[in-house]
């Protein structure tokens, strides 16, 4: 029974994802999503979101007038996204798909999108997957199109890393207990972007370097 209780709590964790991720990132997650939608998405853009989760960013972009295609591997997350999209009457502006990132090769045509975005997804993928997804992203993006990636990053300096751990460990415990949500940190994303053929045009790190935003262009 004990294991069942735990399982049941985990099963319903998708419902608490939004809350959890916001606690864990100290509000950075929502802030950076507003920033992406505000600064990089224009009306009429065809946008692909890799790992749209509960749809927060897709909705922000759709509200700005973009046509969003989002996919995620979790049916539970997508169910919540669908509900949120319906509540905001954006059904005709946001298209959702249930699939894994490694299935992008068959799902989308070449040069189909103006922008590709992805938050807190790459850190969930192992490095071979990251390289594969970036290769596919390059293929489906139009020339001159942008890829925008926001994720947890690992600070370079030891002092900042220690500070980050001090803040992060208690936060992680609290967040996990409350919402069974956690994240991992992203390494080497800049060199993977360059290897895939992108040109990194903007890079920003938050306080303590714990949250990073990368914007790259297909030349």
């Amino acid at each position, binding site marked *: 029974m004990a294991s*069942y209780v735990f*399982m049941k709590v985990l099963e319903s964790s998708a419902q608490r994802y939004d809350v959890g991720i916001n606690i864990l990132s100290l509000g950075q997650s929502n802030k950076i999503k507003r920033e992406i939608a505000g600064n990089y998405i224009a009306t009429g853009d065809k946008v692909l979101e890799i790992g749209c989760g509960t749809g927060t960013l897709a909705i922000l972009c759709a509200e700005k007038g973009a046509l969003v295609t989002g996919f995620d591997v979790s049916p539970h997350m997508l169910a919540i996204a669908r509900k949120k999209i319906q509540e905001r009457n954006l059904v005709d502006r946001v298209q959702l798909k249930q699939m894994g990132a*490694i299935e992008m090769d068959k799902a989308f045509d070449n040069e189909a999108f103006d922008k590709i975005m992805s938050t807190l997804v790459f850190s969930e993928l192992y490095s*071979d*997957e990251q390289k594969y997804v970036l290769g596919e992203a390059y293929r489906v993006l139009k020339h001159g199109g942008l890829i925008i990636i926001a994720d947890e990053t690992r600070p370079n300096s030891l002092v900042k890393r220690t500070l980050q751990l001090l803040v992060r460990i208690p936060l992680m415990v609290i967040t996990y207990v409350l919402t069974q949500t*956690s994240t991992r940190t992203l390494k080497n994303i800049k060199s993977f972007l360059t290897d895939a053929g992108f040109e990194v045009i903007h890079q920003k790190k938050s306080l303590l370097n714990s949250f990073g935003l990368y914007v790259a262009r297909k030349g």
Partner: protein
Amino acid sequence: MLPLSVEPGLKVFGHPDEKSPVFVTANFALTVKRVAKYLKDLDCYLLVAPTHGINVWCAAKGGNFTAHSVISVVKTSGIASKVINRTLILPQLAAPGVDTQLVRKEAGWHCKFGPVYAKDIPEYIAGGLKKTDAMCRVKWPLIDRLDAGIGVFFPVFLLILIILAIFLRTWLAEFVMLGWGLFFLMYSFYPFIPGRAGWHKLLFLEALIGVGLLGYIFLEAAESKYIRDLFFMAMGLVAVIGIDFGGVTPLYKSDLDPLLDKLGIRWIGPVDFTGRSKIIGGKIILDQTKCTPCGICYDICPRGVYEIEKDGHKMVAVKYPGLCVACEACVFQCPKGALSFKT
């Protein structure tokens, strides 16, 4: 995040060639370590699929070991250029989670389910990739029983210990010794305790102690209250240790949940038991008109619920429904949709 996962990808054992078998497993560190132990003297490939560092059965049932995990590791590992066959051998306990038809459609590989335990892989290869019935069954040997039992009993033990330490300090030593003594006895002799599962076994033990107590009262002239209290303590402890015998095993369904449901306890905190009770009361229905019979259900059932009858013509039957643990692997894998789980 937790240091329990290993980087997914391809692992090579021995000197495999283009005809060597390709195995798949989860990326829980202990799982990979154990599988590697049994593959190290063989010539084969092992694909470690991304399952968030969770073991095979839990990940498969919990949505972390899916077709997407398999497709991902197949496509990113470059295994297709190393072998000419296109067959992946998955652990049998991945069957509740991996949609093999999606793997075929997206990655072009055929999946088959190998043995439950990695230790059977050498024999499985030697036998020409054929499973024996024993290789299909989940077992619950002593070491696993103690392992699971300690995990469940220890928190309860600590809780009672704290309560006793505050209110009834005189009984502490007896509680510790009797508690662990009974724990080891009960879990060691679990398969030999009469009763189907769960509280059936519990009732037998309680009756046994009851008889012991009566015997003691009749036979002992100088009856001591201390010994009698010990008997009562043992009865209480047996109840605590064994109340969800079924629930800690991979072999039986928990009896406690339907019992709670019958008593009118439908939820504890955020946890609703009603859905769970339905699963426990449910049973597998086989629609013979849709059954081909391919035998995949027989092949992947960890409990041996099915039987292939060959008198006259081959057909599949739900022979031992009482053994079913509702993992629903067969329902998920049946290519014709002939199986359903009726609650």
